[in-house]
């Protein structure tokens, strides 16, 4: 007998207790995702010609006051990928919250940084921009086709500080140690769900594979790739505690890592210290949850850790 597919409302019901202002959350799911881009300051400092160019093409563009170099665009149904500004590498379309892991990472010029799950490169290019193209970034993804897309983005933005590799993250060679590692993990993508739009079935399809297992493998390897005292940022765009707090909790039990506070430019909620009757390490309150309806972007989870030993 065929099961009737679960509706979004039924699916998210399991998070009713943890999502603040749950009715507002459900309400937001009916809106298409807002559209944003990052200005590529490696090529332009002054946003006015870009804003003017885009408005000539029918876009309304507003800077996001809390997050430097990010702009919100309407109509959100249009694609920025066909504009001249995109072609010339002046802009990088990405959701606003996708900038958060790089805020936690605080990359600096000269640092050796690994972006373990990097394609198509929104965060890699943001790190490059943040460090004026002067950090050394290794951008890895297990899929060659996705690395090809990342390389096209690097070329488009004019970035020279990136090396690209194609390894399974869990088996990344241990010969090189890094100052910082970003794990923007493959996830069920619940945070990007909107009714009838992109992401519709993702959480139902991928929810059945063992994502949590893959994520645990990635976070432990990321830790092992750090120099002592090095910084690890773990992020996902899902609400699911099994893919978030449970993964970080697993690392804390396997390795000597400590959770760190960090300052986020958007409103957040503390990480959970308990889920489905299972307690997590109390320091998980230092992780941050970002909900779609509060930040008007894709929902995110970000944890910042330090390698102790």
């Amino acid at each position, binding site marked *: 007998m065929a099961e009737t597919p679960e509706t979004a409302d039924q699916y998210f019901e399991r998070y009713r207790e943890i999502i603040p202002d749950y009715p507002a959350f459900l309400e937001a799911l009916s809106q298409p995702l807002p559209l944003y881009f990052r200005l590529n300051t490696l*090529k332009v400092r002054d946003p006015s010609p870009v804003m003017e160019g885009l408005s000539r093409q029918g876009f309304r563009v507003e800077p996001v006051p809390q997050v430097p170099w990010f702009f919100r665009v309407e109509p959100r149904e249009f694609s920025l990928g066909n504009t001249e500004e995109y072609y*010339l590498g002046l802009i990088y379309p990405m959701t606003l919250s996708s900038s958060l892991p790089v805020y936690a990472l605080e990359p600096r010029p000269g640092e050796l940084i690994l972006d373990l799950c990097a394609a198509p490169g929104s965060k890699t290019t943001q790190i490059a921009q943040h460090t004026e193209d002067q950090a050394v970034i*290794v951008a890895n993804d297990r899929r060659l086709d996705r690395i090809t897309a990342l390389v*096209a983005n690097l070329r488009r933005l004019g970035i020279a500080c*990136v*090396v690209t590799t194609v390894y399974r993250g869990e088996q990344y060679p241990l010969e090189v140690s890094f100052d910082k590692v970003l794990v923007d993990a493959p996830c069920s993508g619940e945070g990007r769900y909107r009714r009838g739009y992109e992401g519709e079935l993702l959480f139902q399809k991928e929810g059945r594979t063992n994502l949590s297992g893959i994520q645990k493998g990635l976070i432990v390897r990321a830790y092992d790739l750090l120099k002592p005292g090095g910084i690890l940022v773990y992020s996902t765009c899902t609400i699911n505690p099994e893919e978030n707090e449970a993964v970080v909790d697993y690392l804390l039990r396997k390795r000597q890592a400590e959770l760190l506070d960090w300052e986020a430019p958007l409103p957040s909620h503390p990480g959970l210290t308990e889920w489905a009757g299972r307690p997590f390490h109390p320091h998980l309150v230092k992780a941050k949850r970002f909900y779609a309806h509060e930040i008007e972007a894709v929902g995110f989870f970000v944890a910042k850790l330090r390698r102790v030993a």
Partner: protein
Amino acid sequence: MKGKNRKKLDPQATWPRLIPEEEREEILRYLENRFGIPPEIFNSYEFLATAKNYWLFVRTPHLRALEKLRIQTAGLLFLRKVSGYLKPTTAALQRFGVYARRGILDLDRYTLDRLRLEKKIPFTCSLEPGYVILRCEGKIWGCGLYLPEKLISYLP
């Protein structure tokens, strides 16, 4: 336009070699002579070489360590050696062309569109023949080749 300029990556790619000082000087001299780009702009970068290409990569003491990785690409494809001449890539000019003081061709919108469409158009200007920076309405588009009475586009 999205995805159009994607090239196949070489899965067998190996690390490009770090070039000797004289070769670097040669590159910097070319960029200065042809485009007036001051050499200091590249103080924090290395040039790495493969058979026919030069790549721009951030200067780092970690280069040796990184060579242990099996890589797909390192840095930005910057110059190509084309029949004995150096040809800057469009990506290089889009990023560093703002520092240029000569070798710049300002095109009106109509001529740019025509050039992009036809790839090669009849054209006369006062510039020395050779590679040029294509600019339109203040924005740098990339690399072209000016030869007596014609202009060739290398825009992707």
